[in-house]
C-alpha cells in the first residue's frame, strides 16, 4: 500500500510545507510503507501538479482540478480524500492551518484516531509528537488500519523540489457540497518571506512598547531578508497583526537564525521557536528566560541596540 500526501499549494507552486511532509512520508517508505503519491486538489492547478511531480521521491501525482476544490474548503476536500483513501496505508498532510482544518474530518469519516503534528517517525505505526506545548514528547502507536497523520513541518527537512519524475494523473474532484462558501482572504506581509519558510526571523515582544517601534526592526529585516514575527504579548497588546505571532498558539518556526527582541521568553513563545538553529536574544532584563535558550545573548536597551545593529549590518553587508 502506498502513502498519500495531501499537497498544500497555491495552484501555481507547492508550498514548502508539502516538501517537509514528503520527507516524513519518505521515512515511512523506509519502514516499508510503499510509494509516495501526492494529491493536488485545486482549481486551475496544473502548474502546481507539475511542480509536485518534480519533488524528489514522489511516484505519482493525483490532480483534482475543479472549482469545488478552489479554496480548500474542509467539507469538499475531506470528502475527496475519503474517496481515495482505500488505496493507502498512510494519509499525511502538513500541520499547518491547511492540514489541521480538513484532516481530522478525513480521520473521523474513516473512523480513525488521527495522530497530530508528529515530530519523528519511529516505524510505520509509531510516532513521536509534542504535547503540552512541546514541554513533553509522547511516543504513540496507532492500532488503526489507516494512519492519518499531520506533520510538524519544522522537524523534517524539505524534500528536494527537483529531481523527481512522478506521473500526473487526473482524478474526479467530487461535487461541491455547498455547505460552506469562500468569501475573502486578507493576506498580510507584503514582500517579506512568510514566517514558516523564512531563513531568518526577527521577532519583537512586549518590550517593543508600541507598534511604531517595530519600525526599528524593519531595516534590519530588510538587510537580512528576514520575516518579522512577534510574541503573543506583543500581538495581544495590538502592536502587530495576529498572523505575526510565533508560539504555541501561533506559528511554530525553525529558521536558521531567530532574533528575539524585547521578548522575555514565556513557555508559550519558546514552544514556537526553540527548534531554530541559532537563537539571538536582546533584552534589558538579564534574568529573562529567553537567555536560557539563546545561543547569543545581549543585555541591552533595544532602542539603542537596534539602530546599532542596523549600522553594524550595513557595514558588513555592503
Amino acid at each position: 500500500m502506498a502513502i498519500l500526501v495531501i499537497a498544500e499549494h497555491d495552484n501555481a507552486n507547492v508550498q514548502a510545507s508539502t516538501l517537509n511532509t514528503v520527507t516524513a512520508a519518505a521515512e515511512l517508505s523506509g519502514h516499508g510503507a510503499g510509494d509516495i503519491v501526492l494529491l493536488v486538489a485545486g482549481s486551475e492547478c496544473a502548474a502546481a501538479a507539475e511542480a509536485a511531480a518534480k519533488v524528489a521521491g514522489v511516484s505519482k501525482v493525483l490532480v483534482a482540478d475543479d472549482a469545488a476544490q478552489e479554496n480548500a474548503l474542509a467539507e469538499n476536500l475531506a470528502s475527496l480524500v475519503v474517496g481515495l483513501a482505500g488505496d493507502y496505508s498512510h494519509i499525511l498532510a502538513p500541520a499547518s492551518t491547511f492540514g489541521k482544518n480538513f484532516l481530522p474530518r478525513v480521520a473521523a469519516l474513516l473512523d480513525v484516531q488521527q495522530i497530530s503534528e508528529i515530530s519523528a517517525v519511529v516505524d510505520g505505526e509509531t510516532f513521536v509528537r509534542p504535547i503540552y506545548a512541546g514541554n513533553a514528547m509522547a511516543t504513540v502507536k496507532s492500532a488503526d488500519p489507516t494512519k492519518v497523520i499531520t506533520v510538524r513541518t519544522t522537524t523534517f527537512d524539505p524534500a528536494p523540489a527537483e529531481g523527481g519524475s512522478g506521473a500526473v494523473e487526473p482524478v474526479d474532484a467530487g461535487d461541491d457540497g455547498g455547505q460552506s462558501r469562500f468569501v475573502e482572504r486578507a493576506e498580510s506581509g507584503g514582500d517579506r518571506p512568510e514566517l514558516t519558510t523564512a531563513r531568518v526571523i526577527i521577532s519583537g515582544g512586549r518590550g517593543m512598547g508600541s507598534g511604531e517601534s517595530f519600525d526599528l526592526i524593519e531595516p534590519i529585516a530588510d538587510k537580512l531578508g528576514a520575516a518579522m514575527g512577534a510574541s503573543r504579548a506583543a500581538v495581544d497588546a495590538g502592536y502587530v497583526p495576529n498572523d505575526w505571532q510565533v508560539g504555541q498558539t501561533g506559528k511554530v518556526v525553525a529558521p536558521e537564525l531567530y532574533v528575539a527582541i524585547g521578548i522575555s521568553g514565556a513557555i508559550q513563545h519558546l514552544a514556537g521557536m526553540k527548534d531554530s538553529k541559532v537563537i539571538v536574544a536582546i533584552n534589558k532584563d538579564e534574568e529573562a528566560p529567553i537567555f536560557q535558550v539563546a545561543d547569543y545573548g545581549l543585555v541591552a536597551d533595544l532602542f539603542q541596540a537596534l539602530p546599532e545593529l542596523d549600522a553594524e549590518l550595513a557595514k558588513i553587508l555592503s
Partner: protein
Amino acid sequence: MKVLVPVKRVIDYNVKIRVKADNTGVETANVKMSMNPFDEISVEEAIRMKEAGTVEEIIVVSMGVQQCQETIRTALAMGADRGIHVKSDEDLEPLAVAKLLKAIVDKESPELVILGKQAIDDDSNQTGQMLAALLGWSQGTFVSKIELGDGSAKVTREVDSGLETIEVDLPTIVTVDLRLNEPRYASLPNIMKAKKKPIDEVAPADLGIDTAPRLQTLKVEEPPVRQAGVMVDSVAALVDKLKNEARVI
C-alpha cells in the same frame, strides 16, 4: 437557537508541567486544573450571543473524571444554563469525544456547537472537525469573528497567511482562536447561582459509544534541553559572532 459548548478540564496553563519519573505520562497529582483556555473563549462567545438575544439556551458538556463537574460549574457561573457530564475514568481520545458529542447533539439538537480549537494538554486540534464530519455539518475552524445570519454564519478564520472569511450553513461547528473575545470572570452571586443549575450525569455506555483507545502511549519524555549559549557585551561583538562563528549572516 440552542448552543452546545464542550469544555475540557486540563492542567492550568500557568503550571509548569513535569514528566513522570517512569515516563508513563505527565504528573497530574496535586496540580492545579482549570478549564482549557480556548474553551473559556467558547463559553464567553455563547454567552455574548445569548446577551445579544440570538441564543436562548447554552448547554455545557464536559467529559472525564468526577471533578469535570467543577469545570462545568465554572461555565455555569460565567452564564451557561445547564450542564452534561459524561463521566469516564478513562482517557478519552478526540475521536471518542467527537462520537460522544455527536450522540449528545442528536439528543439536544443545537444549531451551533462552539469548541476551543485545541486543548492545551494533548494539543490535538481535532475534536471540532471530527464532530462536524460525523454530523455531516459545515465547519469554521480557528475563528476570530462570528457573525450569525439567517440560516448561515460568516466566520473569519486565522490562517497561516492572514485572515480568511467563509460563510457556513447552519447548523454548524465553530472552533475558536484566542482573539475571538476576552472571557469574563464569574461574579460571586453568579457562582452562587450556578450551584443550583442542573448537571446531568451520563456514562459513555448510556450513549452507546465505544470509547476504546486507538493510540497506545508507549512513553512520555522530557524534550531535549537546549544548551544556553554565551553572553556578548556589545552589538558589534554579536554581529561578529553571527558572521564568523555561527556563519548565519
